C-alpha cells in the first residue's frame, strides 16, 4: 500500500529531452520566420537588408537556444537566403563575389554570437552553483550552531542540577530539591523533543518518509492530537468546529496528527495563557482544509514568509522557544501527502492551516455485515439493543 513517491529521476530526464527538442524546433521556426518575412519584403527591400533579417534571426537563436541550434540556424539561414533571394534564384550557386561576402559575414557573426552566449550561460551556471554552495554552507552552519546550542543548554542544566543534588543533597531544603528535579525532568523532555524533531526533519529531507495512508475521518485525528496535548491545553478554551459531512481522507494518521500537534504547540507557545484556540475542518473543491486559529498577538508581515523555514523562530514567544523545526516538519509532512500548508494573519490573531487532496472516494461500506448475533440481525440501524 505504499505509494511510490519518487519518480523524479525519470521525470527529470524526460523534461531534459523535451527542453532539447524545444530548442531545435525553436531554431527551425525562427529560420522559417526569417525566410517568410524576407519573401514578403523581397520586392521592396534591398538584398543587404534581407541579410540583416537573417542575422537578427541567428542572434535570436544563439541567445535562446544554445550553440548547436545556432550553428544549425546560421547554416540553414545562409543556405535559404542564397537559395531564394540571391540570383540565380532557386540555386545555391552564386556568380558574384559580394554575395559570398554576405554569406561569410552571416556565418562568422552566427558562430561568434553563439559562442559568446554559450560562455555567458556557463558563467551564470557556475555563479548559480557557487550561490547554492554558499547557501548549503550557511544552512549547515546554522544547523550546527543551533543544534549545538540547543543540545548543550538543556544538557548543562541537567548536569548542573544532577551534580548539585548528588553533592549537596543534605544541605538543600526540600523545595530546592524538588525544583532541581523538576528542571531535570523538563530539560530532559525538551532535549527529547529536539532530538525527535531533528530526526523527523532529517528523515523528511532525505525523502525516507513513506506515509502509511489509510482512509479515515479527520475528526479522529483532530481528537487524538488534542488528547496528546491534553496536559498543555489545560486552562485553554478549546473549540472544535468539524463539519458533519466531511468525507474520509487518505492520510497517515501519525504524521497528520503530528502536524496538528505542532500547530497546537505553536499556538500555545506564541499566545497568552488562557486565550482560546479553535480547530476547524471543512471540505470544498476536492480538498479538505483544517485550520488551527489562535487569538494571540499575531505575526509581523515579514515573518509570514519565513515561519515554515527550518530554524526560523518568530519573535514574541513566551519564555524559551522551541526547536524552530515544528512548522518545517509540518510542511515536509504535507508535501509527502500531496497537500500544502500556510499561515493567515487575521486582524485578531493567526490561523495556521493545511489542506489535503480528497482524491478517489473510498470503497463504500456494506450495510451492517451479517456477523451480528441472530437475535440482533433484524434490528434496523438505530434500534435500541435493550430487550423489548
Amino acid at each position: 500500500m505504499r505509494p511510490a513517491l519518487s519518480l523524479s529521476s525519470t521525470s527529470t530526464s524526460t523534461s531534459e529531452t523535451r527542453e532539447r527538442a524545444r530548442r531545435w524546433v525553436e531554431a527551425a521556426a525562427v529560420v522559417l520566420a526569417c525566410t517568410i518575412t524576407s519573401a514578403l519584403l523581397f520586392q521592396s527591400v534591398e538584398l543587404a537588408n534581407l541579410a540583416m533579417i537573417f542575422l537578427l534571426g541567428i542572434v535570436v537563436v544563439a541567445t535562446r537556444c544554445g550553440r548547436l541550434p545556432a550553428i544549425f540556424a546560421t547554416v540553414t539561414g545562409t543556405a535559404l537566403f542564397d537559395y531564394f533571394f540571391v540570383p540565380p534564384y532557386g540555386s545555391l550557386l552564386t556568380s558574384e563575389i559580394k554575395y559570398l561576402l554576405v554569406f561569410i559575414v552571416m556565418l562568422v557573426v552566427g558562430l561568434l554570437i553563439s559562442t559568446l552566449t554559450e560562455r555567458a550561460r556557463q558563467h551564470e551556471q557556475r555563479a548559480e552553483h557557487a550561490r547554492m554552495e554558499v547557501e548549503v554552507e550557511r544552512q549547515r552552519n546554522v544547523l550546527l550552531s543551533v543544534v549545538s546550542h540547543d543540545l548543550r543548554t538543556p544538557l548543562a542544566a541537567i548536569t548542573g542540577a544532577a551534580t548539585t543534588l548528588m553533592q549537596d543533597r543534605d544541605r538543600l531544603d526540600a523545595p530546592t530539591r524538588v525544583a532541581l528535579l523538576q528542571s531535570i525532568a523538563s530539560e530532559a523532555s525538551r532535549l527529547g523533543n529536539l532530538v525527535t524533531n531533528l530526526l523527523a526533519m532529517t528523515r523528511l529531507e532525505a525523502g525516507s518518509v513513506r506515509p502509511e495512508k489509510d482512509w479515515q475521518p479527520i475528526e479522529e485525528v483532530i481528537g487524538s492530537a488534542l488528547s496528546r496535548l491534553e496536559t498543555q491545553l489545560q486552562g485553554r478554551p478549546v473549540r472544535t468546529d468539524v463539519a458533519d459531512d466531511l468525507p474520509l481522507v487518505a492520510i497517515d494518521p501519525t504524521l497528520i496528527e503530528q502536524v496538528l500537534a505542532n500547530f497546537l504547540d505553536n499556538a500555545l507557545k506564541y499566545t497568552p495563557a488562557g486565550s482560546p484556540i479553535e480547530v476547524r475542518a471543512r471540505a470544498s473543491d476536492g480538498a479538505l482544509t483544517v485550520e488551527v486559529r489562535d487569538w494571540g498577538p499575531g505575526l509581523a508581515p515579514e515573518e509570514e514568509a519565513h515561519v515554515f523555514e527550518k530554524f526560523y523562530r518568530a519573535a514574541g514567544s513566551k519564555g524559551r522557544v522551541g526547536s524552530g523545526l515544528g512548522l518545517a516538519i509540518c510542511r515536509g509532512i504535507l508535501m509527502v501527502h500531496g497537500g500544502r500548508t500556510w499561515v493567515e494573519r487575521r486582524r485578531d490573531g493567526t490561523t495556521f492551516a493545511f489542506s489535503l487532496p480528497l482524491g478517489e472516494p473510498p470503497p463504500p461500506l456494506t450495510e451492517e455485515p451479517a456477523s451480528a448475533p441472530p437475535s440482533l440481525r433484524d434490528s434496523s440501524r438505530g434500534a435500541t439493543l435493550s430487550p423489548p
Partner: protein
Amino acid sequence: MALPEPLALIVEDEPELQRFLRATLLANGYRCATTTSGEQALADAAAKNPDIVLLDLGLPDIDGLEVTRRLREWSRTPIVVISARGQEADKVAALDGGADDYLTKPFGASELLARMRVALRHAARAGDDPGAVVETGDLKLDMPVRRVTVDGKEIRLTPIEYKLLSTLARSIGKVITHRQLLREVWGPPYMGQTHYLRVYMAQLRHKLEANPARPRYLLTEPGVGYRLREGLPKGGGEEPVASPVDATDATEPTEPAERTDGG
C-alpha cells in the same frame, strides 16, 4: 489483589533504563527480576513464574516480537512492551502477537504504573470478563441487558456499534488493535478493512461523546488502535483532569471547557 507483592520480570538491555524501571517498581510495591536478553527472558519466565513481563522490543539477541510469540505459546502472563517512537508497526505486531499493552519511550513513572496496573487487573480476571457492568465517567454499559447509557440517558446503538463498544469495554483501559477489533466485530474476512472500523467508531463517538472531535471515552492510539478510557470521574462531561494515564487517580472535576459540538 494478590497478597504477595507481584513479581515483575524486566527484560531490558539498557542499564540506565533498567535501573529506572527497577527503582520505580520496587518503590511501588513490586518485586523485580531483571534480564537483558530475549533467550534469558524466556528461561526466566519459565523458572520464576512472574506476574507480569515488561519487555523492551529492541533486544540484542532475539526480537521482542519473537519473545512475545514464544511466551504466548505456553503462558498467559501479561506482557507490556516498551518501544521507541515511530515503531507503530512493531507495537501493532507485538499486540497482535499477544502483548497486553505498550509504552513508548520516553515515558514517566505514572504512565508505567498505570499500564501495569491495567494489565495485571485484566490478568487477574479469568479471561476477558470485566463483570456485567462496565462504567467510566458517565458512560455505563450493562452487558446482560445490552443497555448503554450516558448520564442515565439511554443511547440507541446499532448491533455493530454495540459490539464495538462492548469489545472495548471487556478490555477497558487496554489498547485493542485495529486487527483485533475488526476480527472481533466483523469477523476475519474484514481484517483489512480499517475504514469500516473508523466509520463505525466515528458513529459511536457521535452518539456517546459530548464532543466527538475531543473524545473523552473512546481514545485513538494513532497507527495502533483504540482504548476505552477507564476510571473517569463522574459528572457533566468536563475535560479529564490530567493526561489519560493520570486520569485513574483523578477525582476532582475541572472547570468545564468551552466547546462547540461537532454534531
